[in-house]
């Protein structure tokens, strides 16, 4: 059964149904057929949740993310369970722009397979592609596979969520922010102002509690004003087809999107992730690259 049929059948069933609250089940009456609500997954990896389960997972993942921030799957689950109406809003913003429509049609994915790092390294200095690979090396990260989306019911909205997650590193790059905690928080404020996702607001509201007071002061006095002003006035970054702009000049791109640089950030030693990946593709590409 194709995904769009499933979502439309759910819309029909929601209108034509009677609730059995004690069972948490919606009984659909159609001629010659009576069946329980469809809990078939709408896309690979989809885990359908009802409202109660969604709420429990939202609370549970919030607690778990604070307790153990290394649980990336819990941070992802929190984002998905709290997304609510923000995803249809983002999808509509994408539909309003021609570039966004192209993204929704192509559904590009950003991971180590689809992003050719060797080709990016060959772009001239000053282009977005070169800036991205420089940023990756400077921070020591890779465009690795992020946790796939599980808890969003509509496949298109699930893609929008996935796209947001995968483009996070592009936002880092275009705003010239490293991957330490203050910069991540600054970027969360930026994302909230620009995209309006509740998860960004939650991270922004609670993430700074783990910072030292000096860093928190710097965050709120310098970064947050920049993030809110810049994020609020810039074009919605979810509509940017980053993969088609590798060759574009970075300053021109920033001017087009309406982004200006934040206060200078502290770039620490690169994390170890990228070293291994870089060594691997150096070996594969051989000498002369």
């Amino acid at each position: 059964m194709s995904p769009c049929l499933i979502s439309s059948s759910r819309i029909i069933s929601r209108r034509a149904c009677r609730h059995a609250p004690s069972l948490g089940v919606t009984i659909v009456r159609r001629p010659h057929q009576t069946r329980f609500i469809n809990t078939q997954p709408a896309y690979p990896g989809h885990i359908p949740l009802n409202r109660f389960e969604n709420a429990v997972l939202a609370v549970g993942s919030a607690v778990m993310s604070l307790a153990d921030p290394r649980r990336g799957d819990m941070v992802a689950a929190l984002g998905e369970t709290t997304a609510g109406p923000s995803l249809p809003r983002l999808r509509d913003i994408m539909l309003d722009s021609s570039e966004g429509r192209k993204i929704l049609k192509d559904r590009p994915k950003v991971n180590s397979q689809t992003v050719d790092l060797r080709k990016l390294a060959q772009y001239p200095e000053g282009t977005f592609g070169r800036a991205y690979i420089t940023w990756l090396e400077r921070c020591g990260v890779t465009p690795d596979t992020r946790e796939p989306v599980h808890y969003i019911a509509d496949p298109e909205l699930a893609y929008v969520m996935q796209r947001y997650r995968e483009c996070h590193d592009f936002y880092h790059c275009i705003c010239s922010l490293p991957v330490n905690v203050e910069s991540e928080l600054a970027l969360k404020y930026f994302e909230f102002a620009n995209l309006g996702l509740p998860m960004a607001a939650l991270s922004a509201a609670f993430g700074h509690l783990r910072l030292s007071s000096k860093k928190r002061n710097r965050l709120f006095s310098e970064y947050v004003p920049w993030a809110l002003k810049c994020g609020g006035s810039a074009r919605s970054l979810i509509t940017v087809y980053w993969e088609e702009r590798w060759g574009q000049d970075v300053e021109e791109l920033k001017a087009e999107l309406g982004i200006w640089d934040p206060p200078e950030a502290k770039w620490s030693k690169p994390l170890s992730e990228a070293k291994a990946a870089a060594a691997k593709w150096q070996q594969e590409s051989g000498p002369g690259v």
Partner: protein
Amino acid sequence: MQTVSRSIRLSARRALPTAVLTRKNHTQNSPQQTQQPEPSIRTTSFGYKTVPEESKESLVKNVFDSVASSYDLMNDASSLGVHRLWKDTFVSGLKPGRKGAVRCIDVAGGTGDIALRILDHARENYADRESSVEVVDINAQMLKEGFRRFKKTMYHNTPQISFHEANAQALPEAQFTDNTYDLYTIAFGIRNCTSIPAVLKEAHRVLKPGGTFACLEFSKVNNPLLSSLYDQYSFSMIPLLGTILAGDRDSYQYLVESIRKFPSQPDFCKMIQEAGFATGEEHDGGAWTDLWGGIACVHKGVKV
């Protein structure tokens, strides 16, 4: 309400034998829609999936490898601590040590919950320090957790406790000789075994004549109201708790499905009798004792 929905489900099943989708399967197809393998391959159930017999063991192994480290935490969270009451009832009903030292084998006893309770019961109630328990489990990770737990007790490095990695369906004859044990316990483990009759046969072999076979397992809840609440809780909350606490939804989905596939109390009682055990009468309070309405159940038999 339950009878209404059950009759709807039954009538739907009659009308559309292949298309009924039960609400319980979140991530898998309904039992009727699983791929039917060739008839020559012997199959068994892995939760609601049908798998070849040979692969069930490794699938279960993967489940328990991944849950081992958070097993006790998840037990407490998903049963809200009630599993402790069930295990206490189970062991105190057996009264180990009352008639002298017992040689006990606790199968699928990885983390050592039952073994510890047996040794403590014998020591506290009958001042018995000669009873011994051999904990047997197919999964090394679970045994490691049990060994770690026993290090915190007074039984560590004594002959009272030992840990062995073995398959309940085929206990090595050299190590587990015939007619050796007074008590064979298996708690919340038998439903994960590929072939229940094989486990019962091995239990019969290693027990002394007059020895007791005792099994604590999740079972059928006959009360319709309790059953529907229990189902709701099992299929909604437990996989979610698995996701949140252990980061592993699939293992806990398997666990709640395997509970539904386990035979009912009378059926399991018959299997125990067929293995050569003498049981009480076939009703609750006889051959088996329901705990919490049948959510858990204690089955006992004596080797003749």
